[in-house]
């Protein structure tokens, strides 16, 4: 298992915290909560080692269009980048409802 941490600049706080997904094979869970600081913080724990650059590219892209000051925890069980992107969008949607 590998753990990565990432920081991104942010502008606004989400309405509420959100939890989506399951740590099942090929899936992941996302815990999204308002960040205690003005920036966004992401912690990724993944069962598949060696993909730090892929995670960074995916999160760079996500935070290119999302400016929430959030603390995101990802527990991953080998999800593909497509699944990760969908779960992140789902978490944002749930936090804005």
């Amino acid at each position: 298992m590998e753990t990565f941490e990432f920081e991104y600049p942010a502008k606004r706080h989400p309405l509420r915290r959100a939890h989506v997904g399951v740590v099942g094979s090929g899936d992941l869970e996302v815990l999204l909560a308002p960040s205690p600081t003005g920036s966004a913080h992401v912690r990724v724990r993944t069962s598949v080692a060696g993909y730090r650059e892929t995670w960074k590219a995916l999160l760079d892209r996500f935070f290119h269009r999302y400016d929430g000051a959030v603390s995101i925890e990802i527990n991953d069980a080998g999800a593909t980048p497509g699944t990760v992107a969908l779960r992140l969008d789902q978490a944002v949607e749930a936090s804005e409802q």
Partner: protein
Amino acid sequence: MNAPFVWRRSFLELNARDRARSLFGPGAGRELLGPFDRLESPWLHLQGVTPQADDGCVVMKGRIEGVPAAVIALEGAFQGGGIGEVSGAKMCGALDLVCRDNKRGIRTNAVLVLESGGVRLQEANLGLAAIAEIMASILDLRRYAPVVCVTAGTVGCFGGMAVAAGLASYIVMTREARLGMNGPEVIEQEAGLDEFDASDRGLIWAIHGGEQRYRTGLIDALVEDEVEEVSRAVRCLLHKGVPNVHRSSQVELFRQRIADLDPSTHLAPEDLRRTWPREAIA
């Protein structure tokens, strides 16, 4: 009347949290020790396995038909629903609190939604200890209030959790679910291919499947995979209250059932339905 297939809300396709939620009315259940409490397993990451923030056990409290109730649901997609130290303690602690309320005169029911391969191998002894505690808690609680167990599939309910299900007051299954002490792979591995072919899905469901369990009187309700059907069956069984005699207390009846079998002959699943008819239990 069942809803047409395409309109129906599958219970089986829901995750543990949504299953628990669906058994209460909309917004009527609140989660205790949810993912943001981060009560996760301290053992999994040491073995290179990503933990889940709720350790795969969802506990909800609310009212079902106006009566206080706790629903405890295991997430089959996380580690095959395996019981670890934390998920086991959550289940056991919830059952004990329900029991305490009942002893204080606050009638509270319990529903277990089990989707589990049994003990989580990464936490072997701690998981076994947790299951022993869960069984003791069910035995204590079922004197005061009915404990209803639902197993819907697709993991099924095996190992220690199958024993826990066996101790419950009532069991609800779908045809897709399986219930058994040892899973097919374990039987094949331990007793050989002649004993059980774990690749023969028809055989597996003919033995472990919900319909066979119902026809041989080992469970109380066989329902379609539909949220409202499962929910209705749970409400109906909770309404019946504590049974006069629990199934697992009928030791002589089950001893006789084993004695009635001739293991020297080949037994087919249909033979079991004849030898062990549902009607003989009532």
